């Protein structure tokens, strides 16, 4: 398959403006004749649905939760980047672009990233106008802080609840459109299939989670903004309901899946406590601004942290990376923590943890200042662990957090299925192999507020999708497919719960395709996963019926898709014989233990194409070009 990225040519600074001018427009009176489906109501989906409704399109928006306000964007704590240079510390659009391309380990598209940096400025303005209560200085101006991977203060924040406040801004804009009647909101719906007619995306099949009704919704274009697939690991920082079903079923209908092996492991999560654990909790990366990370110098030192003297502590990030110190990017901080724990210097009951210590900051700034900056995070930590971080250092360990892979999209954010667009974490674009802090919120809102509303208009104006019937054979086929999967899951009547399978799958993926991977492990996983999947379809126990509120059935379909996705992740990881960002292949590292890229062979996006059940997917390559930021060994020393 030929991958047409539709990336503009010419100077990068003018590319988006020029492209936008070239996009065809639709007369305002005609917009209401078009129906657009938006699946997902987080930052990307909520913002897109609200903006498209405001433009005059008929929008139908779907989410699996009981309200669009629950989307997991709400849990982002730290902040959102924007190249405002309000602090006169040398920031610029070009610097944000540069940091993001470098931070992504040169595996993102330059033109996409530049556009992201460019619209970052508008995002802040938009959110302020909506009433997002960003932190302020006493003079009334917006406050900023710094985040991992950057040496300037460009992160805007609302206490430790930035994601919540940005999401509520988008949610309020969305509810306004719901009130005006331009957007119809469908909550408690799972998208279970994509309807493709004459090669164009024309609708979706959903299950109404309240009563099990399988519904068909048709439209002129479909946007998937359904978030990432980090729950493939079972334990992750994602919400329990986060899943890959919508994008996975679209993949099976012909959308290519790009870079599935790029998973971000976040360095500052609360360590796992026990086998019953259902999820991991992230502590904002902003804590690394004032917290110092250390482990005891001697392996097996089990003394309480406060009794370990200064000269027996190893502040390993400050030692290894003097210029970035505790603020090195996430992939580097995560691997460094793993290395310390692997060498036996890990702390806490499991030995899988390092200290994040605020004693110096409290001495320097006073407890009050620390409380003002991070109070709610400290409370949350205490609630979960029962320890007071003002008195003893926090314990943290890396955990699966964000997935940089996702459905392949072109510069217009359109997938390989015409009429199907993908926004936010659900697509693969912009972050490359690693995502810098405070950039996920930026991408979600950029896609939703400032990119999709333009590019979809161009698609509708040029493709002119035309009418479609609910009786089309493609619709009936999609309905039958969904019914089949549901009946199969309910009919298996095995002995093991869905969760027990998910937990076991998660352990395999974490062990062999987690923070570090190697060819032997990946090959092993590629044997274990299909075997477990086979057992799943023979032995899963889903009680009850389809025609009711059935949470086990919801989970069962999602886990079935995670099995298939996990296999593709391992395949992709095995194909990429290099280390980059969130993909660390142990065979490819520098003598100092840093990731070693192979730019000659792997400067491409790996886009996988579904070839049918039981068939190996085909690998398509989109070569990446770096005209502005030249690939170099990333160094944060």
């Amino acid at each position, binding site marked *: 398959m030929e991958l047409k990225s539709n990336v503009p040519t010419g100077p990068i600074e003018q590319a988006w403006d020029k492209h936008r001018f070239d996009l065809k427009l639709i007369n305002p009176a005609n917009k209401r004749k078009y129906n657009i489906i938006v699946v997902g109501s987080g930052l990307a989906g909520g913002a897109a649905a609200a903006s498209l409704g405001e433009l*005059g399109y008929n929008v139908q928006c779907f989410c699996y939760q009981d309200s669009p306000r629950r989307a997991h964007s709400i849990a982002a704590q730290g902040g959102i980047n924007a190249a405002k240079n309000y602090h006169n510390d040398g920031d610029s659009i070009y610097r944000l672009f540069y940091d993001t391309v470098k931070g992504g380990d040169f595996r993102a598209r330059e033109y996409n990233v530049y556009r992201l940096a460019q619209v970052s400025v508008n995002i802040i303005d938009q959110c302020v106008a909506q*009433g997002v209560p960003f932190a302020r200085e006493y003079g009334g101006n917006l406050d900023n802080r710094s985040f991992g991977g950057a040496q300037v203060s460009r992160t805007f924040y609302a206490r430790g609840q930035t994601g919540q406040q940005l999401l509520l801004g988008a949610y309020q804009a969305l509810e306004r459109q719901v*009130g005006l009647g331009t957007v119809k909101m469908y909550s408690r719906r799972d998208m279970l299939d994509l309807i493709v007619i004459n090669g164009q995306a024309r609708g979706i099949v959903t299950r109404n989670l309240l009563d099990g009704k399988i519904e068909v919704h048709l439209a002129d274009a479909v946007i998937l903004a359904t978030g990432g697939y980090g729950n493939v690991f079972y334990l992750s920082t994602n919400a329990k309901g986060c899943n890959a079903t919508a994008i996975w079923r679209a993949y099976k209908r012909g959308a290519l899946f790009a870079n599935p092996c790029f998973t971000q492991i976040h360095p500052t999560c609360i360590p796992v406590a026990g086998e019953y654990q259902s999820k991991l909790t992230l502590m904002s990366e902003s804590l690394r601004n004032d917290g110092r990370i250390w482990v005891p110098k001697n392996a097996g030192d089990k003394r309480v942290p406060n009794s370990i003297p200064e000269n027996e502590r190893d502040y390993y990030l400050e030692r290894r990376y003097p210029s970035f110190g505790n603020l090195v990017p996430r992939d580097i901080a995560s691997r460094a923590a793993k290395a310390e724990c692997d060498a036996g210097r890990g702390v806490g009951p499991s030995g899988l943890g390092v200290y994040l210590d605020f004693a110096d900051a409290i001495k320097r700034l006073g407890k009050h200042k620390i409380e003002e900056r991070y109070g709610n995070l400290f409370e949350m930590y205490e609630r979960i662990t029962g320890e007071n971080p003002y008195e003893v250092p926090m314990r943290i360990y890396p955990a699966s957090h964000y997935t940089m892979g996702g459905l392949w999209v072109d510069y217009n954010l359109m997938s390989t299925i015409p009429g199907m667009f993908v926004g936010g974490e659900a697509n693969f674009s912009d972050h490359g192999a690693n995502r810098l802090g405070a950039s996920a919120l930026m991408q979600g809102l950029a896609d939703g507020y400032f990119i999709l509303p333009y590019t979809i208009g161009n698609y509708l104006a040029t493709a002119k999708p035309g009418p479609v019937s609910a009786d089309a054979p493609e619709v009936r086929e999609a309905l039958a497919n969904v019914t089949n999967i549901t009946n199969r899951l309910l009919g298996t009547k095995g002995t093991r719960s869905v969760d027990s399978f998910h937990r076991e799958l998660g352990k395999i993926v974490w062990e062999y395709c987690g923070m570090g991977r190697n060819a032997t492990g990946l090959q092993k996983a590629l044997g274990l996963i299909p075997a477990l999947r086979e057992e799943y379809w023979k032995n899963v126990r889903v009680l009850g019926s389809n025609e009711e509120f059935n949470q086990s059935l919801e989970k069962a379909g999602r886990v079935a898709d995670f099995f298939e996705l996990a296999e593709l992740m391992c395949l992709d990881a095995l194909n990429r014989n290099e280390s980059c960002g969130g993909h660390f292949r142990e065979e490819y590292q520098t003598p100092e233990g840093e990731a070693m890229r192979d730019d000659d062979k792997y400067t491409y996006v790996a886009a996988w194409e579904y070839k049918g059940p039981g068939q190996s997917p085909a690998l398509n390559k989109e070569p990446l070009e770096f005209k502005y930021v030249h690939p170099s060994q990333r160094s944060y020393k």
Partner: protein
Amino acid sequence: MKLTLHVWRQKNAQDKGRLVRYEVPNVNEHMSFLEMLDVLNESLIEKGEDPIAFDHDCREGICGMCGMMVNGKAHGGHKGTTICQLHMRHFKDGDELYLEPWRAKAFPIVKDLAVNRGALDRIIAAGGFISVPTGSAPDGNAIPVQKQESDLAMDAAACIGCGACVAACPNAAAALFTGAKISHLGHLPQGQPERDRRSMAMVEQMRIEDFANCTNIGECVAACPKEIQLEVIVRMNRDYIKGALTNRPTSLKGDSA
């Protein structure tokens, strides 16, 4: 430790519902309350019994999806804590707990401990926003906001819309929820132009949704996992009265695009 639970089981909105007794042995103090229920559900599935339905999602205390009454207290009654962040170390061996869904006419039961809180979305849709079209905003620093006002706006904006205030209120009023949004936007310069109209529209929607009036009992504040203060209701009432006395009747939902 070992716990005895009495859980409200109700198959759907039409079913009558009843309390069912369950024994949960081997509760670990580090588990969250919902993890304890997960463990119980796993054992029910093993026995071929329908697991207990309850709403939950982020399990980080921020999405607002979880919530139930434990011994008559919303989210279990621990100060500033959602049920997903409540850990079992607060309970002791042999405790007997009663688990019930949010109770309010405006929150119909979906199944077991899950309810429909769509009414809260409709209150926001009635006026809980600032009418700003995408892409036309002035520079962020062109609208300075006094730090103190911004902090007060953020205090109110922290509401997670879980519905605990409604469930805890003897009147099943939604005044804390609505007041929080009115207060959040009312403390900011951006929120001023629509301030009176916003309060009138949202208060009217509360009435339509069958939430009763607030009689200043304060149970909502005690139950709120985000510790929203009673002052937000004062502000709502003040804005409402001012709006009712000075506004001419207009469309409450704003103008269409």
